[in-house]
């Protein structure tokens, strides 16, 4: 056999073909007693049903954590998690935080200087000094 094969694994590109939301789970913890959880309790009662219905792809767990501040923890597909303490926040502030958790990719925060990245080959190829119609200056 003249040609031997090398092995490579295909690379996934989220959004090409199918899009998977990176936030897979959000834990909501509250306390029945403490005042810092008042906004969280209100959020769970008033806003969470609508938010959860709008995001069926996120798993929500609501569990009490007595004598602790309320927390919203986002779990991501890359295995990381992002906890946000929401003590003394109003329900709509907590909604903003949950939207932040939903939109996050789970990666560590870093400055994005080039917002578009691609693994596709450039249409015109990589510039080479030995090709093309050069021009004399």
């Amino acid at each position, binding site marked *: *056999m*003249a*040609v*031997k*094969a*090398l*092995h*490579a*694994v*295909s*690379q*996934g*590109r*989220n959004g*090409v*073909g*199918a899009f*998977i*939301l990176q936030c*897979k*789970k959000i834990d909501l913890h509250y306390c029945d007693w403490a005042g810092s959880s008042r906004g969280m309790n209100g959020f769970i009662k008033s806003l969470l049903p609508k938010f959860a219905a709008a995001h*069926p*792809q*996120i*798993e*929500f*767990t609501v569990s009490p954590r007595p004598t602790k501040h309320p927390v919203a923890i986002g779990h991501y*597909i890359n295995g990381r998690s992002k906890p946000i303490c929401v003590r003394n926040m109003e329900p709509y502030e907590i909604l903003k935080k949950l939207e932040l958790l939903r939109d996050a990719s789970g990666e560590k925060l870093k400055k994005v200087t080039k917002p578009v990245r691609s*693994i*596709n080959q450039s249409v015109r190829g990589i510039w*080479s000094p*030995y*090709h093309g119609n050069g021009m004399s200056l």
Partner: protein
Amino acid sequence: MMKRLRIERAAGQLLVARPCGPSTPGAALRSSYKCTTSQVPVRHSSSSSAAEAEHTPLYEEDGTDHARFPPLEKLPPNTSALPSPLPSRALESAKLSALHARLSLSPKIPLQTLARTLVDASADPNPYFNNSSLAFLGATIINYHASEWFMVHYPRLPMEVLEAAMTGLAGPTPLDRIAKAWGIEPAAAPGGEVDPGLLQFSLDQPGETVRGFGYTRTVVDKINKNNWQRSVAARVIYEDNLPALPSTTKAKQTTPAVAEQEEQQQEEQQQDDSEVDYAETSPAAPKFSPTSYGSSTTRELSEKAHANFVRAVVGAVFAHCGREAAKSFVKAHVLSRQLDLERLFAFKHPTLELAMLCAREEFDPPVARLLSETGRLSRTPVFVVGVYSGNEKLGEGAGATLEQARLKAAMHALKAWYLYSPGEGVKVPSDVLGQEEEEAAAAGGKKKGGWEPVYIDIGELISR
């Protein structure tokens, strides 16, 4: 590689639960689990979830203080002795429901089926509760679509490269990565009390994988016995048609019949035995021990379980939503991934091979010509060499020596030959599969442009 699918029959066969309910409560249980108490939770397969067992008010005893921490889930006693969660628990799992939505699965696919796809054969050997049959179906569909895509879009790919491309796109490793990208979490140890939304596989036992249905060619035994060498094409025909199946053990293998001439016989055979054949993997697999955690064996088992889950999901989509849905699912999740085919080639004598190619195709013999050069006498020269056949440049390469540049140019020309593609818009056979049926249904309607024969190459170069 392209095996003809006859899935209509297979799907019914695969998804069918047992026709009547389990005869005895213990029959559904794994025999190795000895449940001495009379309160044994009865398992029914997902299709008969209506006849759900009455839960006794007793909860499962798990060594914790139930007075202080009442159990979060009211499980019947001895649930953890079950190899996998009860199908009825699938409806309560938030994880499973979120997964269902994340994959944008049709509501036609019930959560019980999705829960079943998450149970690997190594966790639950009972084929009525594990995903082995669905995984087999899904593997067939994935491999079919991947191979048809490659064969139509790159008709000149050599067999070896095609196999490597298939493995790179639809093999266990890419499928494992797909499963991870779906956010699948594995359960630490499988059992009845585990959340049904977790992937359950065991590191203790390898489990069984469905390798084929029904008929087995007699020649296979001979081949295996004499240990004859086989080409890739022969491997595709005589062994499994899934080059990407993770099992590499050379134990007893049953193979499907694929040859066209055998079809009649095969159909007759399949009507006779609807029983599933299992390939026994080697029983001498290393027993899992805490020290072996994270070893290559466990990683391989994990990869296999993840890949089988993805295949089972495809199988489930096919079984519940049909061919078109399964095709678009495979297209969206498997075929949309990027694989650089250019990097799959490794040559031995590219110049020789190119000369033979030109001789076979009756082109002018290839001539290497220097196109440009710089720094011939310096430490870092660069030569740009083109390979010409007649007046046409076949390939081009730049190298530090003339020899290197010539080899690269020849390799470039060969890759350009092998990676010929008729274009993105070309139809694959499954594209017109549905169309033909539609046209047949609406007889007399205007034709929408049927099947155009695709380009088929005469084959790759064979040299010494």
